[in-house]
């Protein structure tokens, strides 16, 4: 019945519906193309903005870069001002941050991947780490002001700043450590146990070395985050005008090394940049741009390095 009806349909009607289908396909191909174009545009828009930012900053800032700019203290006169105390401060804080965040973060990551049983404690820790990553950085600064500066009396020092940023980047290190460890197949662990190794020996001689590439990536990314972080350091009371360096860590007499610099006041590059940016004179804006170039180059190099390392380790690790 149905077959004969279909067969008896006039040829023109069939042609019509085929045309319809063609038109329909054409229309959908057109919109598909439009959407691809919109997608490409939005991607390009983001990338062009990044490029504009870099070019704009470089055009203003790069001519200002010179040896004096790196070797001078800040000054009331824009052309004599430099970022010596700022980059030394950034460097010291970076060291302190790395020193407190790396051991803690890696240890936490190892515990969560290798030891933690599926119970409510480890669940709370995991939820908490996800949550920490979403907390605004300025609240870390407020916490540090109340806890480190006033309760523990560490003052507005390099140590306080390093600890604050250390806690801030802790979740990044924990998460990347866990990802790196998770990618190691169980056969490695079983082989190690079969040779009579204890759990810690397995971790020490197999898990940690094999995940070191991934962990290193996380460390670099977290330090690049820490170097650009401004708000929490302003909150703990970093000074914006510092015309001296921290105490030298080496001295002529026994024991030759001291840690007095940890308790010194500091400024860092982003704070110096912010300070120059908030002045009305355009000459200081040039200084700000130059500082921005230094910051940007450092973060881009660090992130580029991390991306490169990640892709290299992914290729190398064939289990």
């Amino acid at each position: 019945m149905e077959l004969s009806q279909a067969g008896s349909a006039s040829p023109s009607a069939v042609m019509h519906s085929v045309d319809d289908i063609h038109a329909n396909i054409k229309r959908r191909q057109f919109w598909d193309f439009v959407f691809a174009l919109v997608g490409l545009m939005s991607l390009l828009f983001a990338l062009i903005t990044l490029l504009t930012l870099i070019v704009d900053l470089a055009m203003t800032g790069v001519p200002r870069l010179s040896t004096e700019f790196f070797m001078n203290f800040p000054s009331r006169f824009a052309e004599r001002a430099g970022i010596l105390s700022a980059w030394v401060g950034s460097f010291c804080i970076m060291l302190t941050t790395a020193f407190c965040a790396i051991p803690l973060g890696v240890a936490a990551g190892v515990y969560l991947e290798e030891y933690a049983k599926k119970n409510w404690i480890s669940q709370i820790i995991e939820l908490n780490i996800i949550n920490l990553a979403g907390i605004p950085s300025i609240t870390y600064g407020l916490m540090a002001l109340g806890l480190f500066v006033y309760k523990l009396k560490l003052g507005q020092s390099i140590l306080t700043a390093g600890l604050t940023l250390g806690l801030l980047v802790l979740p990044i290190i924990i998460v990347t450590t866990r990802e790196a460890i998770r990618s190691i197949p169980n056969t490695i662990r079983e082989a190690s146990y079969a040779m009579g190794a204890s759990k810690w020996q397995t971790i020490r001689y197999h898990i940690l070395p094999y995940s070191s590439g991934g962990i290193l990536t996380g460390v670099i990314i977290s330090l690049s985050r820490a170097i650009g972080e401004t708000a929490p350091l302003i909150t703990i009371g970093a000074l914006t005008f510092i015309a001296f360096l921290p105490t030298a860590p080496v001295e002529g007499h026994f024991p030759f090394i001291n840690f007095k610099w940890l308790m010194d006041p500091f400024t860092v590059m982003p704070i110096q940049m912010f300070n120059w940016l908030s002045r009305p004179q355009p000459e200081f804006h040039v200084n700000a741009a130059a500082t921005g170039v230094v910051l940007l180059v450092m973060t881009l190099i660090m992130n580029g390095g991390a991306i490169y390392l990640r892709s290299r380790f992914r290729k190398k690790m064939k289990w």
Partner: protein
Amino acid sequence: MRRLRERAIETVLFLAAASSVFVTLGIVGILVTESLPFFEHVSLKDFLTDTEWTPLFENARYGILPLLAGTFLSTCIALLVAIPLGTVAAAFLSEYIRPSVREVLKPILELLAAVPTVVYGYFALLFVTPLLQKIIPSLSGFNVLSAGLVIGVMIVPYVSSLSEDAMRSVPGHLREASFAVGASRMQTAFRVVIPAAFSGITSAYILGISRALGETMVVAIAAGMQPNLTLNPTQPAATITAFIVQVSLGDLPHGSIGYQSIYVAGLSLLCLTLCFNIIGLWLRKRFQEKE
């Protein structure tokens, strides 16, 4: 001996993992204890309904509304930029582009999130604002609009990366089924992939929202740090974060009302972001259950 050492190591590692919980407890604890004295001076009703925020003035007023308005406004502008751009870019990366090209483009896009925020502040103040002033001549030198737009571009990678991960984790056979009944790539993206990845995409949005809420330097530099109860984006305004920066830049005696006020502001900000984080966690959980 060996067992003892193993136990000791496990305990040390456990303490390291637990330290992250102490960080949260520390943040919440300090913010609450330092801001409690504030409410001995100011009633909660005044705090929530007064329309002026001038804690450092002679006759101080403590209404959080102007700061909330500034935060709300800059966040909304940022999201108006970041959500469409991020979602479309994610759909494009996940559905249209060859994996080899995607592996190059995605890290470059993520560099947007790596640029220090103070550099974005420079960009907003000295590039975007003058540019916008050519279009809107009445725009003031400090304004929420350019700060919000720049924050929007800054959080695009947060939105797009996580959304793209969610879209790519949609099983291939769903796409194939859609193609098999004749759908185009765009129809597949909008009617199959995006609905299937919906909760993952939403949690990407929520991460973007909490980033935008907590963003400090861009607004502190480009939006002018004046508490201003307005929803007009061409005017200067202060966000909660900008206020904290402004007060911290001055000399702040421990226990003064100014000191307490930044903790109250911080606590309000923390509550706001925690709300969004909890929604995000809930959505992520649903998302994982589905997989």
